[in-house]
């Protein structure tokens, strides 16, 4: 348990992705089965444990300490699991090592709902503070360590020296504590066979099209289609088993029963999940967000925000693997599959004529619907290859929107940027008449060069008007302040921001030392970009 607890502590405090990868890889290498397998299950959300409610945990600690001293402690620490882990009377001095993660998991799994809390108490007695914290986080659900399943799989890939796609492909056929997976990754056995029905297949991704690329490409060899702003999904159906996966391989079937019910085919389809009714009514990404990450879906949700899949590709037809055939062939067969499916749930992604690059460039920036992010260009002869191969597929996004905003707050960065103010909150003017005021509209922490970072940092230090912990408020008025040109992909309504809007994917595109803050944009310019809600 000690190694697991230490790993959680380190991951919580390590901001950088590479640092987290390193910690995970070392852990998986150095820890034995089944502990590392249960850790993997906990991180990827696959560890089934009977839950213990916070009230029961509070009850456990109050059997062991004065309520007033507990209240002072909780007040100071602020987190129940942490307070209990720290204030718990210390462990049995006779037990030097403490239970392993594997023991803790099997004890908890054997408990009935009624004796869960008492059992948890006995486990906590045998652990040290970090171990107690880890155990409490396991039973209350939610480790909150900032590690995605994909990152964990990446660490496994590094550990075993295998492509991550191979792990993703067998992932859904594996179960905790994953002894067969680790045996393969450590070279003791071969790759576990995937007996799982309707498995996930690693997806193929595109590279951005750069300015110089066009001249080298022959339009006749390519297919162009719109790049839709939904979520990329994979729908797999085999012998009555139907599953919907996100592009990183998370099973999201339960969130979209409307799709699952309609998936009356055999094979695997790659497409974009969108809200609306095809072919003409497509909702915005914020409409789609209403449907994401829900465990249960109400019938009202289903009727207010119906979803469908705009199909891009076919990976399997029946039991036949089509990935090594050409895109043109796969599209033809995809068309056949879709024609027998309900038209309100599935349609074929429309192609865009490519006569010459210039016309296409115009189309990219003037798409027929606002939920289109740009174009995809795919070689007609391309096979379906996992990952992001260079050459066969390109994404050609529409040019971003830009706005001139005023720097309002800056926060210190981490890792390579510690010591620099590198996270910026910026605002635009708001109000109908003078004096206008600045309202925050977004936050960005990249897009600038190292030299620009130094310049902004210097500006922040010299123009600080107030400090809040690691955050500084900087001078910002009509005549004094720093104007930032911010590029972004779109605007959504937001109830969380005072301005009422939220930017998608904002980044700093230029520093406008030449402009005065009063020349920055007005909120109305952003509101004008809001997608029309009636398109749904």
């Amino acid at each position, binding site marked *: 348990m000690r190694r697991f607890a230490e790993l959680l502590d*380190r991951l919580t*405090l390590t901001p950088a992705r590479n640092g987290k990868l*390193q910690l995970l890889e070392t852990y998986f290498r150095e820890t034995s089965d089944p502990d590392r397998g249960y850790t993997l299950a906990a991180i990827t959300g696959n560890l089934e444990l009977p839950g213990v409610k916070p009230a029961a945990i509070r009850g456990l600690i109050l059997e062991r300490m004065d309520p007033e*001293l507990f209240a002072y402690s909780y007040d*100071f620490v602020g987190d129940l699991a942490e307070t209990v882990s*720290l204030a718990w009377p*210390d462990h049995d001095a006779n037990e030097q090592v403490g239970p392993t993660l594997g023991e803790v998991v099997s004890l908890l799994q054997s408990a009935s709902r009624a004796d869960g809390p008492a059992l948890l108490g006995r486990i906590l007695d045998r652990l040290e503070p970090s171990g107690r914290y880890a155990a409490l986080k396991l039973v209350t659900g939610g480790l909150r360590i900032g590690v995605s399943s994909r990152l964990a799989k990446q660490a496994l890939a590094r550990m075993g020296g295998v492509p991550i796609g191979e792990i993703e492909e067998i992932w859904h056929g594996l179960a905790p504590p994953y002894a067969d997976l680790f045996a393969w990754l450590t070279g003791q056995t071969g790759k576990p066979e995937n007996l799982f029905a309707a498995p996930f297949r690693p997806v193929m991704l595109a590279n951005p099209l750069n300015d110089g690329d066009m001249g080298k490409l022959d339009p006749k060899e390519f297919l162009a289609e719109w790049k839709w702003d939904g979520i990329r999904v994979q729908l797999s159906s085999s012998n009555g088993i139907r599953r919907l996966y996100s592009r990183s391989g998370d099973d999201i079937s339960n969130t979209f029963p409307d799709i699952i019910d309609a998936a009356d085919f055999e094979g695997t389809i790659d497409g974009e999940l969108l809200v609306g009714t095809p072919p003409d009514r497509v909702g915005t990404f914020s409409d789609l967000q209403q449907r994401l990450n829900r465990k249960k879906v109400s019938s009202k949700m289903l009727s207010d925000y119906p979803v469908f899949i705009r199909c891009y590709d076919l990976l399997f037809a029946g039991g036949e693997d089509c990935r090594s055939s050409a895109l043109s062939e796969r599209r033809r067969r995809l068309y056949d599959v879709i024609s027998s499916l309900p038209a309100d749930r599935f349609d074929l992604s429309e192609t865009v004529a490519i006569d010459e690059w210039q016309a296409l460039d115009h189309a990219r920036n003037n798409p027929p619907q606002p939920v289109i992010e740009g174009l995809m260009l795919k070689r007609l002869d391309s096979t379906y290859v996992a990952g992001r191969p260079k050459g066969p597929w390109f994404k050609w996004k529409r040019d971003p929107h830009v706005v001139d905003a005023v720097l309002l707050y800056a926060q*210190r960065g981490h890792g390579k940027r510690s*010591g620099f103010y590198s996270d910026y909150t910026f605002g635009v003017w708001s109000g109908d008449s003078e004096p206008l005021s600045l309202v925050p509209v977004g936050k960005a922490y990249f897009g600038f060069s190292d030299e620009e970072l130094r310049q902004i940092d210097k500006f922040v230090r010299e123009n600080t008007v107030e400090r809040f*912990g690691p955050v500084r408020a900087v001078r910002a008025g009509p005549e004094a302040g720093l104007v930032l040109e911010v590029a972004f992909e779109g605007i959504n309504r937001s109830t969380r921001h005072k301005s009422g809007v939220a930017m998608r994917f904002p980044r700093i595109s230029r520093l406008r030392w030449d402009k005065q803050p009063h020349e920055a944009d007005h909120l109305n310019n952003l509101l004008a970009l809001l997608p029309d809600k009636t398109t749904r």
Partner: protein
Amino acid sequence: MRNVNKLQAHEILHPRPEGLYCPLGDFFIDPVRQVDRALITHGHADHARPGHRSVMATGETLDIMRIRYGDGFAASTQIASYGVSTNLNGVSVTFLPAGHVLGSAQILIEANGMRIVASGDYKCRPDPTCATFEPVICDVFITEATFGLPVFIHPDDRLEIGKLIDSMDEFPDRTHLLGAYSLGKAQRVIRLIRDAGYDEPIFIHGAFENLCAYYQSQGIDLGPLLPATVEPGEVDFSGKLVLGSPSAFSGAWSRRFADPLICYASGWMRIRQRARQQGVELPMIISDHADWRELTETIRQTGASQIWVTHGREEALVRWCDLNGISARPLNIVGYEDESE
């Protein structure tokens, strides 16, 4: 336990805005404002302030004040040796080791047959850089409560140093930037790192140089130390260990280090959220203050029937005393800090 008349104790020592005052002996202990005569428990800036007319403290504390404030920090000074009693207007004062930092002392005050101990800041576990704390039997024990909550139990410092050593193995290219308070904590941590077998040069921020040199002059071997305050690019710090005060990390100084891994040695690191807020990647729970267990054990060991709590989490420690049938009250002295531990 000896029963004490509360009024009697109060006549010998009581709080005033300047600090704890003894009218019989006409002196203050660790005054936060300038006074005529000050007895100083240790050299941390909130306890040892410049500008008093006369200062009595251990030789080490006086040296530290001289290093920090210059020769004119007081008009006159008097050295107090551990265990040697001095008579001040009929009040006997004795300085005894407090185990907090080099030269730190508790002050035993005896008058009218009553014994009062003002312990200043203290810790009970051994520290290779200063004399070890001794509990003193007394009637009134005046204690700090910086870590006066049951959640604060400091682990064995060797385990915490082990975390640092392991991290340097796991991230051999990153600069480990270790934050520590400049007086006491820095030197103790360096000594502990040496005890763990690390004998490469340790780089220190310029603000640490004088105090580290002073500790070494007092026979505390800190091993090879090199300045970290050099022109950017002059030294390749990757894979090195650099010590500085945490406040220096947010400034321009920290930028010369390649992908630094921020470590912080402090009792506050027991709380994850504290570490997270300060951007600490490797928290090391190493404190120069007594933890909850040491505070409560010490209170019992002194046999005192009255506990006065000076600063920190007073309410919880007073509550513990209540639960254990010991009379206790907070003194509410303003001016002592605990954030810089």
